[in-house]
């Protein structure tokens, strides 16, 4: 996976409440691996590029280590081109299944939340 470097990130993307990122970073990291094996900096850049702000190594690596222990990802060291080696993370079948499950759950949760927060619905429920 290459480090994305083109489109600017959405405005205010780095201002998400840390609780939201803590809750979602797991499956977002799995999603970042869905296109193929990737390494730490590329995963961080991918998430930043898609508007989730800059994730610190101290947050990402422990998460990936736990996923490796749980069998959701595998790791492999590859020699760099004239540079240092890179640790590549890749989704396992179990990891892919977990991503599918969590993505579906998140979509349902997001729809439910959006519906509940809908301003028109609020106006109807609370008459002036």
């Amino acid at each position: 996976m290459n480090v994305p470097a083109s489109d600017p990130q959405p405005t205010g993307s780095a201002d998400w409440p840390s609780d939201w990122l803590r809750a979602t970073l797991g499956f977002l990291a799995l999603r970042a691996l869905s296109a193929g094996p990737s390494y730490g900096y590329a995963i961080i850049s991918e998430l930043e590029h898609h508007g989730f702000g800059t994730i610190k190594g101290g947050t990402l690596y422990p998460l990936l280590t736990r996923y490796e222990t749980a069998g959701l990802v595998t790791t492999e060291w590859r020699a760099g081109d004239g540079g240092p080696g890179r640790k590549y993370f890749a989704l396992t079948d179990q990891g892919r299944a977990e991503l599918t499950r969590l993505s579906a759950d998140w979509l349902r949760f997001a729809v439910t939340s959006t519906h509940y927060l809908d301003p028109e619905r609020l106006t109807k429920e609370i008459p002036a």
Partner: protein
Amino acid sequence: MTQQTNDKKWFDQLVMELRLRQVHGSAIGDTIASTRELLGDTGQRAEEAFGPARDYAAALELPSEPKHDWVRKALWPSLLGLLAFLLFNQAMVSWTRSEPLLVSPAQLALLATPVVFLAFLPLYLDAFIRRIWVCIGITAICVLSGLLSAFATPSSRAEAWLAIDPLPWLIGSALVMVALSTMNTIRSAHSEDDNDITDPLSGTTDITGRGARAIVQITNWLFPILAIAMLGLALSFR
């Protein structure tokens, strides 16, 4: 330069924290390499990217060896070695003076102090390593009790609780020290390949690992080396 120094300190702390958690050397090597990889990519300082080394080591939740393993492999042999060394010194002084080994209860209590501190090390190991004043305090107590035990040595048979021939104790304690050092040398030679911090790509041992290996060998023979030095001193002042 300052950044390199700060990062070196951070990495030293990380290795220490992971070692305290009984994490295997290969997993430590993997962690160090992946951490360096990201720092190389981002240009960040280690503390900035990963937070305090202690917190990062805890957050990784790497698999660890059973805690009692180091007690069995390292603590008990060290404890026995210390006992043999203390006994050797007491017996040696009496033997060089051609006197019986005289023992009093106060002397025994003072000599037992460092042994007791060492025996209970697992209970306060974290504080001993992380807080310098705990380390200095306990070391000072052990040295002081050793010095005071010399003053508590009975000067005559009438004051002594026990009066025994020093030679068998001198030879016996020397044999125990040599046997323990030999055993530790063999054990560390076999375990080096297993638990060294290795680079995940090349499989080579970390430079500090090679330095540590020499220190381990010196530590293995510390009590016999000190015992020979003490014997030399005692014979020269006879």
